[in-house]
């Protein structure tokens, strides 16, 4: 009951987000002209592009929150840590693009709409097994089946595993004490991971932000449309993901 009350309150607080989504479409069209940046910096944010199974072609799920989420995230990374992020832009790459292998961290949005051809599935497998790290974000219950299906095409031997607070990724920079992360209309976040050899003591190669959308908090962090505390948590998670990927 208590949780329900909290969720209702959050719904009220985050109601403006829906309106913001509409505004974002216009901004995305403008930012499409940004293009990719040249390799040369220690950390350049990479957003994965895929062919969506359905949905509007002018606003595909992979592009949600682009480019403000990554721009804001890069600024925060630079402000709080000694990582050298590129602040002047970010990349959008497909999984079968050889350029992807110059950037060991990639972000995948809305995997409920995600599809891959064989080359992309091979690309994802190679990327993760060689040492790449994947952040999967912004999806809810009805998207899980497609997400797991696509992942199993790339990594049939691995399965997603529910993560808890004890994992090192939640302490790799910020000491995150609570991962029961509430998110407007999707309830409470769940964090899942893909581990080498399905062993939680081994390297985490992909983290899955289920029932939440930390990219959205990054995107709107400078607008006042989202609660500061939740935005802080979203940034903490992002910075920790990056630190873990770099150090482990």
């Amino acid at each position, binding site marked *: 009951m208590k949780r329900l009350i909290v969720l209702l309150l959050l719904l009220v607080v985050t109601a403006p987000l829906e309106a913001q989504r509409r505004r974002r479409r216009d901004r995305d069209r403008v930012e499409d002209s940004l293009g990719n940046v040249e*390799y*040369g910096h*220690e*950390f350049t944010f990479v957003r994965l592009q895929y062919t969506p199974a359905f949905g509007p072609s002018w606003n595909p799920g992979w592009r949600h929150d682009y480019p403000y989420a990554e721009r804001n995230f890069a600024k925060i990374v630079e402000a*709080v*840590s*000694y*990582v*050298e992020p590129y602040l002047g832009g970010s990349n959008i790459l497909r999984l079968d693009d*050889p350029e992807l*292998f*110059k950037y*060991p961290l990639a972000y995948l949005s809305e995997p409920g709409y995600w599809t891959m051809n064989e080359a992309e599935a091979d690309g994802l*497998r*190679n*990327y993760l*097994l*060689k*040492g*790449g790290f994947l952040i999967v974000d912004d999806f809810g219950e009805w998207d899980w089946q497609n997400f797991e299906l696509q992942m199993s095409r790339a990594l049939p031997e691995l399965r997603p595993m529910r993560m808890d607070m004890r994992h090192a990724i939640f302490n*790799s*920079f910020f000491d995150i004490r609570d991962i029961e992360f509430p998110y407007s209309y999707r309830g409470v976040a769940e964090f899942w991971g893909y581990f080498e050899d399905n062993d939680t003591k081994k*390297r985490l190669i992909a983290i899955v932000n289920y029932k939440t959308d930390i990219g959205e908090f990054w995107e709107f962090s400078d607008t006042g449309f989202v609660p500061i505390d939740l935005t802080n948590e979203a940034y903490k998670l992002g910075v920790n993901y*990056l*630190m873990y*990927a*770099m*150090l*482990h």
Partner: protein
Amino acid sequence: MESMFEFLFKYRPLIFERGDFMFSAPWPIYLAAVAGVAFVVPTLLLYSRARGKSRPIDRGVLSVLRTLVLALILFSLFRPVLMLSTVVPQKNFLGILIDDSRSMRLADVNGAPRSSWIQEHFGVEDSRMLRGLADRFILRFFRFSSSAERIDDVSTLEFAGDKTDLGRALSRARQELASVPLAGLVLLTDGADNTHKSLEEPLLALRARSVPVYTVGLGQQKFPRDIEVSRVETPRSVLQGASLVVDVTVTQTGYSGTSVDLIVEDDGRIVNIQRIELPREGEVATVRIPFKATEPGPRIFGFRIVPLDGEVVTENNEQEALIVVEDHREKILYFEGEPRWEIGFLRRAVRDDANLEVTLLTRTADNKFYRILFDDPDEELVGGFPSTREELFGYRGLVIGSVEASFFTLDQLRMIADFVSQRGGGLLMLGGRRAFAEGGYAGTPIADVLPVILDESDPDSGFLAEIQVDVTPAGRTHPITQIAETIEESAKRWKDLPPLMTVNRITRVKPGATTLLKGEGPGISDQVVLAYQRYGRGKSLVLPVRDVWAWQMRTPLEDMTHETFWRQLLRWVIAGVPNRVRVLPVADRATLGEPIELIGEVEDDTYLKVNNTSVVARVTAPSGVVDSIVMDWNVDRDGEYRATFVPREEGLHKVEVSALEGGEVLASDASYVQVGDSRREYFGSEMQETTLRRIAEETGGRFYTPASVSTLPEDISFTESGTTVIERRDLWDMPVIFMLLVVLISVEWSYRRMRGLV
């Protein structure tokens, strides 16, 4: 030549060398002058007054010729003699030293072993040589190889010694015969001393006592056909799985340009075969051959060339080396000044290497550090980078990433330099925006340690370049940069690797440093990518690139180049890093009963030498019998302790040296010695004429070969050593004098006839 000399001058050259020349006429020497004047002056006057058809020049020539004739007659009349010191028969001793080592079994002269000449001339009582010597001297026989002792019967020698120690043999014979009149020593040997000890001291002692040594060189000075694996350079110990590149020195005679297989074996298991071309006659070929040490423990590695038809010696085609393959974790501290991709990829590259323990300390933000440790997480590095020598010197290797010099205190910078120079650790500096000159290291104590020259950098220059890495000639055969099975495949592989980024423009290495990898890119042709140098007791390396991980992400999934490179690099960084206590057997092979010298070095936890502490060596024989030997501090060298043990059984002996305090073991180290048969007698086993001539000449003796040795008994009798008498040898009747007289008179007669003066 010598017989011609003897024909003309009546005696052999040796007699003239040994004797003192003088006249022994019964009248005083001044009469010679008077007689000279009495004969020569009237002759000259008569010739000068003579006239007739003669010209002045004719008179001059005839005067000279006649004067020479008169001088020769006078020379003979005054009875020239040689005064010689000769031994009194049976009043002097003669030491005969016989080489009893295995090399005397070599049948390199007319198909007969070298030892057969000894048995023929010294093993049979009625041999001419032995009778000639026994008539003049009281003979004492010695056998020698690694040791030397008196023997009574030469025919019982087995020629089975594992070592030839000429110095020990000469000293032993000199000492044994110190109290008797000694005419000299006869050394019957091939001269192939394999102790690598100087002969200076034994020869000095012999000179001081005026004991001449007569050396007889047995065997061929140069084999007609032979291949020898003469030297192998290997480390004493390596980590399990280490890639080794070993220098093998090969010499040959009679097989120039022939291709042969050089085979490397690990306790009998072939680990590599490399086709090599033998060098030209008289040249030495050094072959670099890579292989891996995969099995732990003390291992005997063999390096051999299959014998070819017609080789005189086949036992010298193989060398063995004892390498201790360690199977324990070595601690390396990797300190990074900023989170970056290189960290995770480096750690993953070596995580499956059971012998490397990379402790990570990363500065993630201001005063914020992230540790990834293996043990003792509650205490290790809680205060950030070590601030005491004890803490830092506990690691064997130190990797410094992108962290500015100003992060460290001056004491920490000095401590890092001491880590290399004093502790003997390995230092690796990686590239990055806060490393090298860009990190302000120019002019710091660390800049002195690094193998590259740091130019003052403009922090705003924003240097960033993509470079294609390639291996240098030195890197082609270096163990760090072997990334394929063979040296050729490895060199080819380097050219195919993805390019790397660098933000540190480094082009110059220090004198004495070695560049293993270099890089080229747009407008860049000489970027140093990997270089090293020795510094004090340790070594330093630089890798001024920032994304070696590209060799992982941008190569096929199954490609192991990235892992191989990091493992080999880090293993090399810590290779040979000393322990606080070190045991150094002087040799890793010995024969049964041969004393083995042990040297131990002891240091405290800051690696300062510790004198006069309690140090014990425990020698465990193959049977399990343990000998504890107290090691004595060598007052001449700080921290050095010595002891000797004599093995009583064959096989591998473990030597463990421990430094004790109050009965507690502070630190210890182990090494191994293989006791048993050795093939060293077959290496460098040609007759060493230079060595034997030197021994003879420095002591006043003479060098012989079997062809020239027949005069030995007589030659030795002309000595000033022992009990001697003076003997006089006439020279007036030398054939050469009469021949000269005939020639001079004939010339004078011919001249007169030619000039019509008869």
